[in-house]
């Protein structure tokens, strides 16, 4: 258990603290500060990998935890914005659902490989960035309907590709 306590995972975990602050600022009518919390969450994501390399504590669990933290943080923010009516709910439900399928696919991939590992999807990394912008567009009300449906479509397309890679194609040696 204690092997998971390291600087990289601590930084990843610290991203969860932006969530209550995000909700607080939104409820207080401070969307700009809420947007800063989204940016802080994304900013911290840049440093966990760096910390893992610097302190030599890279692990399969850390990679998976990082991907899971992305899904939980951005999924929560999107779901909250849909709940308060800043984003349309249907595409957000689809995006969160696709995120769940993606996590399931990654777990199955780890099971196929036989160790804790994370399937690196270069395309899905772009979608994670897209969801951050989507949250920003929801906060600023810049074409939230258009961007939500576009994000759901792109994510669905990439997920079909990734599921084939994770569950059907031969695993790398």
């Amino acid at each position: 258990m204690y092997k998971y306590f390291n600087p990289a995972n601590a930084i990843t975990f610290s991203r969860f603290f932006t969530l209550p602050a995000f909700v607080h600022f939104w409820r207080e009518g401070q969307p700009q500060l809420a947007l800063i919390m989204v940016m802080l969450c994304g900013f911290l994501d840049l440093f966990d990998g760096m910390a893992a390399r610097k302190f030599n504590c890279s692990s399969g669990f850390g990679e998976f935890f990082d991907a899971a933290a992305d899904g939980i943080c951005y999924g929560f923010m999107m779901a909250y914005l849909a709940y308060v009516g800043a984003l349309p709910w249907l595409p957000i439900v689809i995006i969160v659902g696709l995120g769940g399928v993606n996590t399931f696919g990654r777990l199955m991939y780890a099971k196929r490989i036989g160790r804790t590992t994370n399937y690196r999807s270069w395309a899905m990394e772009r979608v994670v960035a897209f969801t951050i912008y989507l949250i920003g567009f929801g906060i600023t009300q810049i074409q939230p309907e258009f961007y939500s449906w576009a994000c759901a479509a792109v994510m669905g397309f990439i997920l079909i590709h990734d599921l084939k890679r994770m569950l059907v194609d031969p695993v790398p040696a």
Partner: protein
Amino acid sequence: MIVSAKVFLWFNTAMVLGIAFISTWWDGRLFARLWPERNDKHDEFFGSIMGLCIVVIGLFGIIRHHLSL
């Protein structure tokens, strides 16, 4: 509010344009570099194509927003 709504909108527009510029540069280079070995490095190559598609979507949305204002 830290800045006015108008400044905030233009800040966001500038941010989208800046990110679109960087992403086009980054993924465009990646696409060109990986084109000869697109079958061997399929995942990276596919990621660069998706990155460029997202740039197009991002720019389309921001233009649509400013035209509809």
